[in-house]
């Protein structure tokens, strides 16, 4: 009796698996015509980390998309009005979770994907998007390879070579520093990539650079700060994730580091600026957007965040607008433009329409070059105001 039961169960499992697969394939084909008749729903996939090292940034990026979805919940495609639904999947920051999270999105029949915060996981997911032929719009993944190696990946932000060079120029020309110290997490391609470009550019300008790495999970940055002081470095460039940024600020303040802490777009987070509040440190960062750049957007999203407890928690407990949030907002509207231009919810049509999309977002003009990267030639530089605990605008810096 038992063995028959076991056999039946085993067979049932196999069939269930096959049936499951079959069923979802059916729904995929049947949902498309149904949507055409009544308008229906168009799904935009959100491929973002909600947990892990980049969880904080990913959540803020999602906020921008959710707010955009709240502002503009429908889109007109091919003469019919569609309701836009965000399908959010957590990719847990790390590359090994990228493929299954991406496959999950494909399973939900999305027309276009937005994300991710963090380049490594974007590249891991990109392979799946390419397999499925679904276009993806990178929001703040800055590694050149995200788009150069993937035909379906586009992005609306600037790239690491650009950002690294901007920071090097800023440090050398504006701050007048000739000796720099860089700190990157071992194993993080984002950190290491930016440090590479920064070092290249800074050395080309005539400066000296000392590179060091710290192992993942480090909390004690005191000795690194001491090393930087020993090198006589005028800036510490540390393009690290939010958590480490807070700890580095803390250590720099404890060790009384007198130079400037230089951060990248990951530092543009209210948790970072709050940890600098009341401390004797100078923190300068590059970013995509400066709060106050678009008054209408700022007041609208603040109101929305304040009215929404979950959103406020995800934003770090206040209504400060991060650049990644603005970028998420722009990415959503870029996706809508692409859908309109495609005249269809078919991923292939959206993919074909994406290269021609032009959109003026809150973070500036968005248009793509032949690789799929945004044409951007300026970054915002902000500094942490240690009295108010907010970012102050410094300048707009280009590479020249």
């Amino acid at each position, binding site marked *: 009796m038992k063995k028959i039961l076991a056999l039946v169960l085993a067979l049932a499992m196999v069939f269930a698996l096959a049936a499951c697969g079959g069923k979802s394939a059916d729904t995929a084909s049947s949902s498309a015509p149904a949507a055409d008749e009544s308008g229906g729903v168009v799904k935009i996939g959100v491929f973002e980390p*909600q*947990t*892990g090292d980049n*969880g*904080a940034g990913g*959540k803020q990026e999602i906020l921008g998309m959710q707010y955009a979805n709240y502002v503009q919940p429908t889109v007109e495609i091919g003469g019919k009005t569609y309701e836009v639904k965000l399908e959010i999947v957590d990719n847990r920051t790390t590359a090994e979770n990228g493929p299954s999270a991406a496959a999950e999105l494909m399973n939900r029949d999305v027309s276009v994907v937005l994300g991710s915060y963090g380049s490594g996981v974007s590249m891991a997911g990109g392979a799946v998007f390419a397999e499925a032929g679904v276009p993806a719009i990178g929001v703040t993944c800055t590694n050149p390879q995200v788009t150069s190696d993937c035909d379906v990946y586009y992005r609306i932000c600037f790239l690491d070579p650009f950002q690294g060079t901007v920071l090097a120029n800023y440090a050398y020309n504006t701050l007048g520093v000739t000796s720099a110290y860089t700190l990157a997490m*071992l194993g993080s391609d984002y950190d290491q990539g930016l440090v590479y470009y920064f070092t290249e550019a800074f050395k080309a300008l005539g400066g000296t650079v000392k590179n*060091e*790495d*710290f*192992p993942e*999970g*480090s*909390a*004690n*940055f*005191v*000795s*690194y700060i*001491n*090393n930087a*002081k*020993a090198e006589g470095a005028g800036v510490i460039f540390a393009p690290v994730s*939010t*958590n480490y940024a*807070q*700890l580095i600020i*803390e*250590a720099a*303040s*404890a*060790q*009384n580091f007198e130079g400037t802490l230089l951060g990248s777009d990951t530092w543009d987070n209210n*948790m970072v600026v*709050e*940890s600098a509040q009341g401390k004797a440190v100078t923190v300068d960062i590059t970013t995509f957007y400066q709060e106050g750049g678009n008054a209408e957007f700022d007041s609208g999203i603040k109101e929305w965040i304040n009215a929404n407890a979950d959103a406020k*928690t*995800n934003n770090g407990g206040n209504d400060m607008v991060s650049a990644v949030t603005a970028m998420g907002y722009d990415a959503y509207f870029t996706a809508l433009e692409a859908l309109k231009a495609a005249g269809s919810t078919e991923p292939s049509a959206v993919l074909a329409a994406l290269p021609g999309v032009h959109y003026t977002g809150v973070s500036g003009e968005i248009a793509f070059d032949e690789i799929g990267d945004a044409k951007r030639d300026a970054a915002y530089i902000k500094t942490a105001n240690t009295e108010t605990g907010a970012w102050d605008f410094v300048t707009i810096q280009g590479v020249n």
Partner: protein
Amino acid sequence: MQGLLPYLINGVSVGGQYALIAIGYTLVYGILRLINFAHGDVFMVAGLIMVYSSATLPMYLAIPLVLLLTVALGFVIERAAYKPLRSAPRMSLMISAIGVSYLIQNLAFYFTGGLPQPVTNAIPWISENVTVFGESTKRVTLVTPVLTAVLVAALVYFINHTKIGMGMRAVSKDFETALLMGIKINSVISMTFVVGSFLAAVGAMLYFTNYPSVAITSGGMPGLKAFVAAVFGGIGSIPGAVVGAFLIGISEELIKGIGYSTFSDAFTFALLIVVLCVRPTGLFGEKVTDKV
């Protein structure tokens, strides 16, 4: 490398933090022959409790609450996850410890939303900056080794001169004989976990005052390193764990100082392997003969 001093000061402070965790490992190992993988996570939870309690309560209430809840957590872990396996093979016990560690991390993940929690209300006074011999540092850096020394002295007194301390020594010498002699094994073991968790809570408060951000993986590395320290000093020996912790703390900072930070973690493990192969009983460990 600049002057040696800032690295030494920092190394001593790091060593003190490791020492407080290492004692928890060494006590438990001495009695149960169990590497309590969950100990680092207890340390992390203590940090989280500190974040939440200091945000809502005044400091004179928050600190006792952290100690109390952490001790309770250590007690509950022992009762729930280790006590049912007392007669099981040691491997099951270790697997249970790994399972508990996994569970605590995932629960912490759920409750924090997976985001690192910044310590916004640091303990006053010890989080202020001071200048020692012309080097700036936080006061907690100086307080940590002193507090560690005081607590260790108290612990040694407790183990050598109180009844339950004697019980602990007896159980670690010979589990079954101690049982036959009428020692309440379960309460002695619970006491071990209570003491270990208490010290971990103190360690966490110092650690997260110095490095004010608690991630769910924050306990992992300090935990492993403290364990290495315990092995280095001779597992089961309290002075050994403390000396081992200070040595590891200092050498780690010196390695960063000479520019090999890539291997600052790897060094600790290399040291562990060398010690295990050359002198498995560590610096102060007693020679234990395996019973067949």
